[in-house]
């Protein structure tokens, strides 16, 4: 039983190995002669303003949240879909209801205008 997963494990291990190997190899083999412009973010351009980690809009958060919801929906639909043939019509209606409820949540989000992108976070409330 476990054996059937071994290819997956090997694949994962290979992927990790190759990624790590490339980093290490480039560190070991590549010439390292640092100087000031070279260490800047843009070797031949302006110095960046502000930090690398920029603030994101709340819209991202809301999209990520909706993504979770529908991710879970998939997780529930998948076992149903696999056995769909075996179930009676009652289960079909239940599934329709399930999807409808989650869609209502999406409609709500849309109607509330939460996907508009003009809301910048971070500034304190007055």
């Amino acid at each position, binding site marked *: 039983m476990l054996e059937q997963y071994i290819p997956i494990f090997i694949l994962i291990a290979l992927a990790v190995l190759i990624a790590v190997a490339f980093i290490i190899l480039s560190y070991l083999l590549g010439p390292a002669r640092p100087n000031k412009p070279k260490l800047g973010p843009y070797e031949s351009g302006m110095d960046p303003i502000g930090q690398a980690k920029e603030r994101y809009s709340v819209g991202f958060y*809301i999209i990520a949240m909706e993504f979770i919801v529908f991710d879970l929906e*998939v997780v529930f639909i998948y*076992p149903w879909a696999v056995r769909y043939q075996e179930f009676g019509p009652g289960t079909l209606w239940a599934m329709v209801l399930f999807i409808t409820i989650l869609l209502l949540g999406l409609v709500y989000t849309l109607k509330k205008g939460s996907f508009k992108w003009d809301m910048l976070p971070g500034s304190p409330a007055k």
Partner: protein
Amino acid sequence: METFFFFFFATLSIAAAIAMITSRDTVNSALFLVVNLVAVAGIFLLLKAQFLAVVQVLVYAGAIMVLFLFVIMLLNLNSEERFFSEFRIKYGIAFILSVLMLSLLVYAVADATNTLPVLSPDSAHIGTVEALGDTLFVTYILPVLSTAILLTAAVVGALMLAQRKNSGKKES
């Protein structure tokens, strides 16, 4: 073979968990949590819960942690102070409490099995997506629908909290 994978994933998950709670940078914490979750998914595979292992990666590592990372980026948090930078009584108490609880739990789950417990012969069957589907959509149809409502409630609540108050509303 199983023992080897168990130790591999167990060590990985514990190391990632410890790294998560000691790491200064919130982003690193989140990434270590992802590692931990993936390692636990590996253990799910050892336990022959294939579908749950996939779900674990898909939902936990894939969706929930993305949400965490988005929020961390969104708020652009400064790093916290070091974990053990100063010893506080609080830490001591927390540590003692946790060790006590750990020993209690370990005592509770200590059982006369050999190093790795013998899995039930049915276990290969029950972890499949078909078996889960059969049970979930026959017996547990009510909880499934309740979960939909729970998620919708979370959406409503989260939207209300995350949005700034509309300017059109009366002020308090």
